[in-house]
């Protein structure tokens, strides 16, 4: 009997061994995901990966992250050497660069049909479409809003809970909030300004439209602001500095520095600024939708970081990558992202819930997503540089706005042509 038991147990052990061995043989596919380091995002992504791996036991996701400042350099160096991720995060404005450099491949249209995406995501995501397929999708988006310093509002005799609602009020409030010292130097600006921050987006997608024009053609291949409307929008912007004297480029080094130091009455910035402002001691701030023009027209600029599948992913890894992409762009993932990272969801079904759209801090940003545009950049850095130069020519070299506008338009058109040839 002992012998039979022994044999029995050997068989059992062998059977268990075979089962375990068999399970191991269906070896886990490992895919690599790269993103830049931002604590909240890394946390959120870790949670998402955990959930994903539970639902897909045959896939493991290895996440690697880099300091933001170095992210592009790392990707640029790794990919030609055959290294790099299977799913990669990139700023939507870099899409063209990445496609040109053959770093990413289109998302399969059976899993990600373009019509479905256009129905389910906010309109600005359209920028990720090229020809008949989408190359990347966001989990979260950001938009712009007007921040203001409540204490400084009170000091200037303004209602601390009421931001300016129109452009005219914006100028008026800014004038009241500007302070100078005895020698005429600015010690407090009414509105922070500088194309190096978010102003170039404000100007392009909001101001130009509010003055009756459009920044680019529908497909973003032709510059369209070199006209009356564009000139008016430009002069509105530069007049704030040269005529109304409510601001100065480079004041306190960076616009957000001025606002954090309570030396600025108002500040236009993206939703990513919320975390930092909440941590700034002694700063009482409010946030509201960007001012409308006299006819009540509102517009906004939305930007987002997207995830895409790298060209390196093939076969099993490709399939795993597709599943992963599906997961991280699902509504549940977006809700988690909103709660953990504080970034706005890319799907209206998640964003436009009462709770989310009515939130005092996130509400203004979310409501703006409905009418926001995302500029399809050919090269975001270079195009932004043209905006910076356009203003510098006027402010530093006394050039006439019309001439500077024409130069900027020509320069930007050259950039677009180079990429769209």
């Amino acid at each position: 009997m002992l012998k039979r038991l022994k044999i029995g147990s050997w068989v059992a052990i062998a059977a268990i061994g075979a089962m375990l061995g068999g399970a191991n043989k269906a070896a886990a596919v490992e895919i690599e995901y790269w993103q830049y380091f931002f604590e909240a995002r890394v946390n959120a992504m870790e949670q998402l990966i955990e959930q994903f791996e539970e639902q897909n036991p045959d896939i493991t996701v290895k996440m690697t992250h880099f300091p933001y400042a170095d992210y592009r350099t790392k990707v640029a160096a790794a990919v030609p050497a055959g290294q790099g991720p299977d799913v990669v995060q990139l700023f939507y404005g870099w899409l063209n660069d990445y496609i040109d450099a053959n770093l990413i491949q289109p998302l399969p249209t059976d899993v990600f049909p373009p019509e479905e995406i256009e129905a389910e995501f906010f309109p600005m995501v359209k920028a990720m479409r090229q020809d008949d397929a989408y190359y990347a999708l966001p989990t979260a988006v950001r938009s712009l809003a007007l921040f203001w310093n409540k204490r400084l509002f009170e000091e200037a005799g303004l209602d601390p809970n009421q931001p300016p609602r129109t452009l005219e009020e914006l100028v008026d409030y800014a004038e009241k909030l500007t302070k100078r010292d005895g020698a005429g130097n600015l010690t407090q600006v009414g509105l922070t300004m500088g194309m190096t921050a978010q102003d170039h987006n404000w100007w392009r997608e909001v101001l130009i439209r509010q003055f009756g024009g459009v920044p680019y053609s529908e497909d973003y291949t032709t510059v369209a602001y070199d006209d009356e409307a564009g000139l008016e929008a430009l002069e509105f912007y530069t007049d704030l500095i040269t005529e109304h004297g409510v601001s100065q480029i480079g004041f306190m080094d960076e616009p957000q520095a001025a606002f954090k130091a309570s030396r600025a009455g108002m500040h236009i910035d993206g939703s990513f600024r919320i975390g930092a402002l909440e941590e700034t001691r002694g700063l009482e701030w409010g946030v509201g939708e960007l001012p409308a023009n006299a006819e009540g027209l509102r517009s906004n600029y939305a930007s987002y970081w997207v995830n895409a599948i790298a060209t390196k992913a093939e076969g099993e890894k490709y399939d795993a990558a597709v599943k992963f992409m599906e997961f991280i762009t699902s509504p549940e993932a977006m809700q988690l992202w909103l709660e953990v990272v504080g970034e706005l969801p890319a799907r209206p079904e998640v964003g436009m819930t009462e709770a989310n759209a009515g939130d005092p801090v996130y509400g203004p940003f979310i409501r703006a997503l409905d009418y926001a545009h995302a500029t399809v950049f050919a090269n975001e850095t270079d195009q932004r540089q043209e905006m910076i130069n356009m203003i510098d020519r006027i402010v530093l070299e006394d050039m006439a706005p019309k001439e500077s506008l024409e130069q900027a338009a020509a320069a930007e058109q050259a950039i677009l042509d180079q990429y769209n040839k």
Partner: protein
Amino acid sequence: MNAALPALQMRSIRPGRIIAWTLLLMGGIAMVMPLAFMVSTSLKFPHEVYNLSLIPEEPTLENYTYVLEDGRFYKWFVNSLVIATIVTISNVFFDSLVGYTLCKYRFRGRYLIFIAILSTLMIPTEMLVIPWYIMSKNLGWLDSYWGIMFPGMMTAFGTFLMKQFFETVPDDFLDAARIDGLNEFQIWWSIAMPLVTPALSALAIFVFLGNWTAFIWPLIVTTNYDLYTLPVGLTTFSVEQQVEWELIMTGAALATIPTLLVFLFFQRFIIRGVVLAGLKG
């Protein structure tokens, strides 16, 4: 202490000397003002960072505890230390060997080799980074100490510096040693090298510093956070649209300490100067 002008040094203190000394001191203090601000910012809370006062209203060690409690900081520190030390030793050895050879031997192709080595100074490292990366990947050097170190093991800078200083070593000494029966290596090691200790000290300081602050290459060749060198690790304190300056200043302040110690250690050798050469006459 250089006895450059012994006859003109009187025991009594001349007003000219006092003025010179005072100006030098004031100049020195002006030189370190930016550093004072760096330290001062590292002691501030984030909301005070932008008022750029020298003395913080609410000084805090919070930034230091934050940075030092981050276990990775120690790893980065040690990485930088080990790498900088090894590369420095390599340079002190090889650069002086090559500099000496190019200076004290006559052979065909000598000048060409010198110019060739010098020309390597003219390529910005930024352009070599990608070929190096591909090379490292093929040879399995990624994510390793060697991978970080190999491009800097010998430098044209060091070679050039040592060559210039070996020019000041009189050939007679070397010939005398040859007559005494020493071989060429011994001559270099025991006769020539001791005569250029000020230059060697300077070389050690600069190579150490250069590798301590090296950024682009260590960034590219490592993906593993544990292997980051200090400057690369410090960039984790900057995120999109937001740079945490008080933390960067803290990291920078902490990073200055070892370099300061290295400097203080080696500068004594520069003081001692070239005594023997003068005496033997």
